């Protein structure tokens, strides 16, 4: 187990990079997912079709394939995902701004894939809002956008937050794939490096990596439990 102490800096660095990846991908997934959910319930048929097609494609493809298309398909199309080099953001998440695009590709793949699940979680939340709410909002003359923004979505969020949390926990675990698609120095890539190039024994290294993921997922899980309990009290 000495590898955990000897190479603590590697594990700490790996944790930090995976954490950054998760924050960015979760933000992206929530934004895209909400947008797609709105499209899926919109009164405009083509928007509904696009939303449904998006969910069908991304929810039903293995993440490895999505990662693969991001890491090798985007370059073939001539894109290095430079639109993610957002000034300001790149000073906090330095990996976002470098020339090598693979961190950006991983963020895109993870965000697009997770967005499909986010969309469905939000849609289930929206469906849980009694239809009378939306009808009443329409009756007092609110537009579709206002209806969503002021009446439906705030209530939908409440019942969607726990399933959303589960989606994000799944995403954090899925982020382990990034290390196999060109991201250097995240938890899974560091493990790979320690075990084969440096010849450290596999089991202690993977225990270290597990701890890194648990540090992110367990607190999130506990937080979700508390939100759920508080909501149960509020509902009574």
């Amino acid at each position, binding site marked *: 187990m000495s590898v955990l102490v000897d190479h603590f800096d590697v594990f700490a660095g790996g944790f930090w990079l995976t954490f950054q990846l998760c924050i960015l991908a979760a933000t992206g997934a929530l934004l895209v997912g909400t947008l797609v959910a709105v499209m899926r319930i919109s009164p405009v048929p083509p928007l509904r079709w696009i939303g449904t097609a998006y969910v069908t494609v991304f929810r039903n493809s293995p993440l490895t394939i999505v990662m693969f298309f991001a890491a090798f398909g985007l370059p*073939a199309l001539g894109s290095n995902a430079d639109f993610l080099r957002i000034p300001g953001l790149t000073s906090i998440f330095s990996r976002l701004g470098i020339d*090598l*695009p693979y961190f950006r590709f991983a963020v895109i793949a993870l965000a697009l894939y997770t967005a499909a699940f986010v969309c469905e979680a939000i849609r289930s939340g929206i469906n849980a809002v009694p239809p009378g709410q939306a009808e009443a909002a329409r009756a007092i003359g609110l537009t579709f956008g206002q209806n969503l923004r002021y009446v439906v979505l705030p209530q939908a969020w409440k019942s969607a937050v726990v399933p959303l949390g589960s989606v994000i926990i799944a995403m954090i675990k899925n982020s382990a794939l990034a290390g196999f698609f*060109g991201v250097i120095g995240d938890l899974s890539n560091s493990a*790979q490096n320690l075990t084969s*190039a440096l*010849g450290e024994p596999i089991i202690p290294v993977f225990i270290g990596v597990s701890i890194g993921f648990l540090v992110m997922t367990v607190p999130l899980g506990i937080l979700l439990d508390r939100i759920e309990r508080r909501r149960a009290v509020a509902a009574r």
Partner: protein
Amino acid sequence: MRMTRVAAVAAVAALAFTVAACGGDDGDGGDTGAGSKTFEAGSTMERLNKAQKIIIGTKFDQPGFGLKGLDNKPAGFDVEIGKIIAGELGIAEDKVEYIETPSAVREEVLEQGKADIVVATYTINDKRKERIDFAGPYYVAGQHIMIRADDSSITGPDSFKAGDKKVCSVQGSTPGDNIKKYLANPASPGAQLVLFDGYQKCVDALTNKQVDAVTTDNVILLGYVAKSEGKFKLAGEKFTEEPYGIGVKKGDTAFREFINATLEKIYTDGRYAKAWQDTAGKFDSTVPQGPAVNRY
């Protein structure tokens, strides 16, 4: 009726026995087969010879050294060396079983006894010697850099010091770790280094200009240069020495010595040169001198 059935079963059993006995008769041709060679009792050589089976760990994705083709059989220089060792143990070529050993699992398969020997572009180093033992080296490769043919800005590993050139290698490999010290910021290599799980992905990234160079052992790169039809070239000279050894279980000194003696024998009797010419020689026609084995 009942009697007939018993008789039929007996007849079938007798027939099966005869067929099995026949099969046993014509197996021992040539210098292979149990008992055709004798080894010290209790040694690994004797055990493998008695069992008439050896499991060799090799790469399945390394052109010239160990590449599994459409016929489902791995082929390459490492595979040939493995076959020669099996032959010296009195085991026929078709009794050799190959398992895939990517870089990350090579120590593990030897420790757990899943392979008897590992011949898989396996660089000898002290860290690995703590867990397994090496016979050989049977070949000295060296780390080299491959670039796009129209690129003249990279002349060697020192070209990465400036920090604007990006390089790709394979996860968990010695070259991938080794190149870090040539980067502008070795402690956090993420800005210049990409690691994939196979070289082909690096080659794709080089083609699409996500990276400017691919680095690993020269023989592997030569395979890609040969295949690229002039798109890639090697930059400068090789800048490390990577002695490839044959991994055996830790502490099995007799077996290691047996392999070392085998290597010294084939250096001189032409089998080493032939193994090279048939495989990796297609990319690098200079037949290497068999390096002196290291009996540490």
